[in-house]
């Protein structure tokens, strides 16, 4: 290394750098933006009571389920569209959406799964076969509306863990579903939750019985493929007394010029001493650099710490979607229960995000912690919206909120909307917020050490997100980091 640097080698260094720039520019397209060509069956666009009945019929649901859906649908009709978020949303034509799409041949096992479909999963890097075993991940893959394959069912069953698609759960474990479905997010909770309750087509169901620690990380990959299809999944996770589970969902969608609607509902129930960790890596198609296309991601996620000493932790890395509207929340009902929310939300180009959490403290000595990191680049808008509520009975409850925004460039925006309601004088609420820019000094420091501009930005952003990435399961932390790098390409200069 001490050899005298020749003119040639310095020129080579410069050339290498330029070539890297070209390669990066070429690779800047959305890596998951391919479309799988397989034959689809589905319902024509439109929504009325008949559509709801048809969905329920296709899924061979019991009568109570059909009624449940219809009730939600009727409620939905009476509800106004929410407009309080700091989002600019073009009107959505709910009659133009098809509410059910499924691959034509209904697969019964992995061996029967359409090879094109498996290829899709491979492109996405989902470990469905033996790779799953190596990675120790059980995957319930949801392709459009039907769950096509659930791995590790057996091993999980031996531990007493139920992990299957929501459709199966409704058929096979109706008592459990009936007991818990809608118990955290009622059908009429909000506009999109009501819509989801009426038309949800599938999703995941997890049940961890008393005292069981789930032997592996559970993971679901959702993927929207069919054009003009809204995806409405419904996920329910129940951890009985002393049970532990860690669940991860990853999301991608192919590139389309039209906006697509994704309105999911996730409900978590933690009984006494139970712990649920729910991690999301969301990479839905964000639209192109001019703001055309992209997913509308309107999601209701709520956890219920129903038992004493229970804990629910949400970790999310949100890099995709044209519009993100979601507030994973925790109801802290049990005494000494703990709620956590760790979030990284990145917006670029014309993406909009209005995301945050709600921590509702009801029980004594309940604790919550919120760490939200927002990164804005391009002309994007990124808002944190959070509610911390200390109810009358929340003796000695505590909350700590930390909200940091990082701006890249001059045309983006970051906003923080913290709401606090404290009805118990012994409760303590702390809030810290910072807004920073990647400084010229930081950039020059990195570059003067030999690190190029884009790598420097990735590194600084990665450092900014460290606190949240630490909460993700190891392999997904790596994925999240890569995702940020890809999403930020072209953010400098």
């Amino acid at each position, binding site marked *: 290394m001490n050899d005298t640097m020749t003119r040639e080698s310095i020129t080579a260094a410069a050339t290498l750098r330029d070539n890297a720039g070209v390669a990066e520019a070429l690779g800047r397209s959305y890596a998951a933006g391919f479309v799988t060509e397989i034959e689809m069956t589905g319902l024509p666009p439109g929504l009325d009571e008949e559509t709801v009945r048809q969905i329920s019929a296709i899924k061979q649901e019991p009568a109570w389920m059909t009624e449940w859906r219809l009730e939600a649908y009727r409620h939905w009709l009476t509800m106004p569209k929410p407009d309080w978020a700091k989002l600019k949303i073009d009107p959505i034509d709910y009659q133009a959406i098809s509410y059910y799409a499924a691959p034509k041949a209904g697969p019964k096992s992995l061996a029967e799964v359409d090879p094109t479909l498996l290829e899709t999963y491979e492109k996405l890097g989902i470990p469905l076969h033996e790779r799953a075993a190596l990675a120790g991940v059980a995957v319930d893959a949801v392709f459009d509306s039907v769950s096509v394959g659930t791995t590790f069912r057996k091993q999980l069953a031996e531990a007493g863990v139920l992990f299957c698609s929501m459709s199966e759960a409704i058929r096979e474990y109706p008592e459990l579903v009936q007991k818990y479905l809608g118990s955290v997010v009622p059908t009429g909770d909000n506009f999109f939750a009501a819509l989801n309750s009426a038309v949800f087509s599938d999703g995941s169901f997890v049940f961890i019985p008393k005292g069981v620690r789930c032997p592996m990380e559970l993971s679901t990959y959702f993927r929207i493929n069919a054009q003009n299809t809204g995806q409405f999944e419904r996920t329910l996770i129940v951890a009985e007394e002393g049970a532990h589970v860690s669940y991860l969902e990853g999301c991608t969608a192919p590139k389309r010029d039209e906006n697509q609607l994704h309105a999911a509902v996730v409900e978590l129930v933690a009984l006494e001493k139970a712990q649920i960790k729910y991690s999301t890596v969301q990479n839905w198609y964000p639209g192109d650099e001019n703001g055309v296309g992209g997913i509308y991601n309107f999601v209701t996620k709520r956890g219920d710490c129903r038992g004493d000493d229970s804990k629910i932790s949400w970790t999310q890395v949100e890099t995709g979607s044209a519009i993100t509207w979601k507030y994973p929340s925790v109801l802290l009902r049990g005494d000494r229960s703990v709620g956590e929310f760790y979030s990284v939300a990145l917006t670029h180009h014309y993406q909009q995000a209005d995301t945050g959490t709600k921590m509702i403290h009801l029980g004594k000595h309940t604790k919550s912690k919120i760490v939200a990191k927002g990164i804005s680049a391009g002309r994007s808008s990124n808002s944190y919206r959070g509610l911390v509520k200390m109810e009358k009975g929340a003796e000695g409850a505590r909350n700590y909120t930390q909200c940091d925004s990082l701006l890249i460039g001059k045309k983006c925006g970051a906003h923080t909307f913290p709401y606090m309601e404290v009805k118990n004088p012994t409760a303590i609420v702390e809030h810290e917020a910072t807004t920073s820019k990647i400084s010229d000094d930081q950039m020059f420091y990195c*570059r003067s050490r*030999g690190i190029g501009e884009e790598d420097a930005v990735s590194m600084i952003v*990665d*450092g*900014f997100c460290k606190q949240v990435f630490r909460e993700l399961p190891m392999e997904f932390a790596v994925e999240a980091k890569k995702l940020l790098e890809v999403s930020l390409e072209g953010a400098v200069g």
Partner: protein
Amino acid sequence: MLKIENLHARVEGKEILKGLSLSVNAGEVHAIMGPNGAGKSTLGNVLSGRDGYEVTAGSVTYNGIDLLALEPEVRAAAGVFLAFQYPVEIPGVNNTYFLRAAFNAQRKARGEKEFDSMQFLKLVREKLKVMQISDELLHRAVNEGFSGGEKKRNEIFQMAVLEPQLAILDETDSGLDIDALKHVADGVNALRSPDRAFLMITHYQRLLDYVVPDFVHVLADGRIVESGDKSLALKLEEHGYAGLGEGAAA
């Protein structure tokens, strides 16, 4: 190795360097001294390619090529290193990780094979021994929460790992107590070698008690006004910067 000729540079429209010329050969240690506002830090920043410094006339050749035409990261890969007067904090980024990224980026740019983490760790261990730095420093975020002395030592440690050909130390001695100064000086001395040159920018001569320079230059009002050996620094210590420059041709 480095040849600066009639360099003129502006910052925010104000001319700071006004015809600076300097030649540095491999193996030499040059000290640049001068009063505040003379353009010392500007020289370091222009050489390493910081934005906001506009060169209006003159040239800088490094190993025969036009240094000013290169991006900062290319200069780094070509062997130019700037030890910052105010090292920058990068929250959440591990010090070792940062250093490995820099090390490998430079190797990649030179067409050399990158080091994996084991190889790099071995290298870092060796350098730690030479620099007498505790490895606790490695596990922290880049300069975050470091004391003034720790930051400066970290700069020297980075230099030890990156093994530059031309090391520019911008007021590395400022803000250091005598023990920290000795540590930093020991580090620099350990890195002196026949194929490495040093440009030490300093306000005080005390660093030169520990790192003895081959040449001392006085920079005043944007130009080198006097050059000499170590004794020039001692003379400055005695008489101050006032009245200097008369001996040099304007």
